[in-house]
């Protein structure tokens, strides 16, 4: 149940009839942007300029301010949010350094993209004006086909070189950082020698302990020194000795 339904229930309960139109609410948000994750953010201002509120609208129509942070918008630009307000306009690059900004890559912008952006940010501009502006911008930023192909090839070559250099660089790094790995063949040979020695030893052993046989052996009689005993003591000592 949405918030509007709940409100309507309350109004009906108290005999108050009101209608809430989503289109009116949407019209009150003048500008909106779509983030790279598909989330749509809104603002009351005409554009996401610095200081404008930035919020999202949940299913119940509630406005939830954006948490602080940088968000990537579709198209690659980044908008910064602080305390629920735009701190970095998406039109401006994330790095405010002018020197880096001067080395912006040429982006290909077609007329449709420009037109949709104008309609989005400037809905009161008018269809004719927006179309004219879009056509002009598209002409300015459009790249020749040759440069596009060359740039693509260059990107591919750079990607391929990076691919080759990376393993080499990784190998060099590994060799520099880690100690020399032991020769696996030598390890296997050593293990093989150990196994061979163990096998030789096992072969020399009998398959089993054999049949256990108890041999009846007479009890071992320990000699008794009787030289210092008299006759009676000798008789008793010998009797006890053999009576074990």
């Amino acid at each position, binding site marked *: 149940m949405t918030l509007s339904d709940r409100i309507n229930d309350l109004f009906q309960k108290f005999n108050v009839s009101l209608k809430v139109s989503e289109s009116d609410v949407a019209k009150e948000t003048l500008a909106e942007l779509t983030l790279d994750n598909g989330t749509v953010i809104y603002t009351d201002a005409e554009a996401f300029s610095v200081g404008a509120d930035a919020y999202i609208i949940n299913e119940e129509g509630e406005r939830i301010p954006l948490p602080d942070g940088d968000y990537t918008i579709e198209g690659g630009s980044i908008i910064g949010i602080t305390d629920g307000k735009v701190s970095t306009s998406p039109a401006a690059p994330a790095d405010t350094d002018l020197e880096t900004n001067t080395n912006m890559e040429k982006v290909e912008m077609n007329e449709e993209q420009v037109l949709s952006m104008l309609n989005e940010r400037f809905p009161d501009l008018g269809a004719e004006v927006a179309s004219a502006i879009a056509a002009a911008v598209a002409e300015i930023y459009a790249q020749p086909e040759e440069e596009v192909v060359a740039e693509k090839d260059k990107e591919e070559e750079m990607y391929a070189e990076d691919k080759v250099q990376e393993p080499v660089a990784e190998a060099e790094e590994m060799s520099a950082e880690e100690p020399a790995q032991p020769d696996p063949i030598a390890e296997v040979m050593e293990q093989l020698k150990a196994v061979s020695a163990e096998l030789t030893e096992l072969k020399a052993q009998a398959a089993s302990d054999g049949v256990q046989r108890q041999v009846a052996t007479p009890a071992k009689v320990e000699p008794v020194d009787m*030289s210092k005993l008299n006759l009676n003591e000798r*008789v008793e000592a010998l*009797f006890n000795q*053999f009576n074990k």
Partner: protein
Amino acid sequence: MANATVNTTYVGQLATPFVAPAILSADSIANGYVSVLENVRHEAVLKKFSGGTIADRSCTFTTPATGMVLGDVTLTTKQLQVNEQICNKDLAQDWAAAQMRGADASAPNAYANFISQYVSRIVAKDVELNMWQGNYDPLGAGGTPSVTSFNGLMNLYAASSETNNTDVAGAFTALSPSSGTDTGIATHLIQLIANMPSDIEGDPDTKIFMSRKTFSLYYRYLASDNNNPVLAQEVAKFYLGYEVIVPAGFPDDCLLATKIDNIYFGTNVLTDMIEARILDLTAVTGDAVTRVAMMFDAGCQIVDEASAAAVQRTS
């Protein structure tokens, strides 16, 4: 009185505790005065060899003129038995009295064992006597042996060639030497040493055997001759370097000089051919007696009589 009813027969190893003390507790066996073979089954062959010379090395095999001679003698045991009858009234009281002495009393806790030990003491004395003077005529001829169970060592020596023997007349005395033919023990010892063969002369293993009576005479002679009875006690243990041994069963008026490994006593006490029976006749015949029966073999032998010397009284 304790119930002393016994009726048991022991054969083989079971009889060993009863028969062995009767034989092995003999004085000469206990003290090692003779060589003992304890597992003789009727006969035992004793090897002896003589001769043999060392010659210069050569390429030919040449036997010496007097080569090594390997001979043997046979020790033959004689089947013997002990039959004793003991009154239960007397012996049972002794046994009960021995039991009453407390935990330290060495008396056996079984009446059968007590009786067997009593008999064993008697048998041991008999074995000792027969070992030395069994069937031995103390006068050489015309006398009567005191024990006749089996041939003793002196009987065997007298029956041999007596190569190194001197016959003397008259009983031994403690007189000091005078004429050289007197009956003094000192004179006889001089004669014994003079008879000693070169094989054993000077050998520290050579012993002089004499009876306790003869040893007493020797002791008295030393005491009177040195006028020092105390000194004589130590001096009497040896004569001219030879140890004097006094077996309990040695006959009087004779001397023997030999090595211990030259005289043997054999028995089957450690074989399965012995037997012991302890029978109480109270329930059989009504007699309050216990009969003890033992069966064993015993015998003696001298390996080489020429390796011994003796002085014997013959008249």
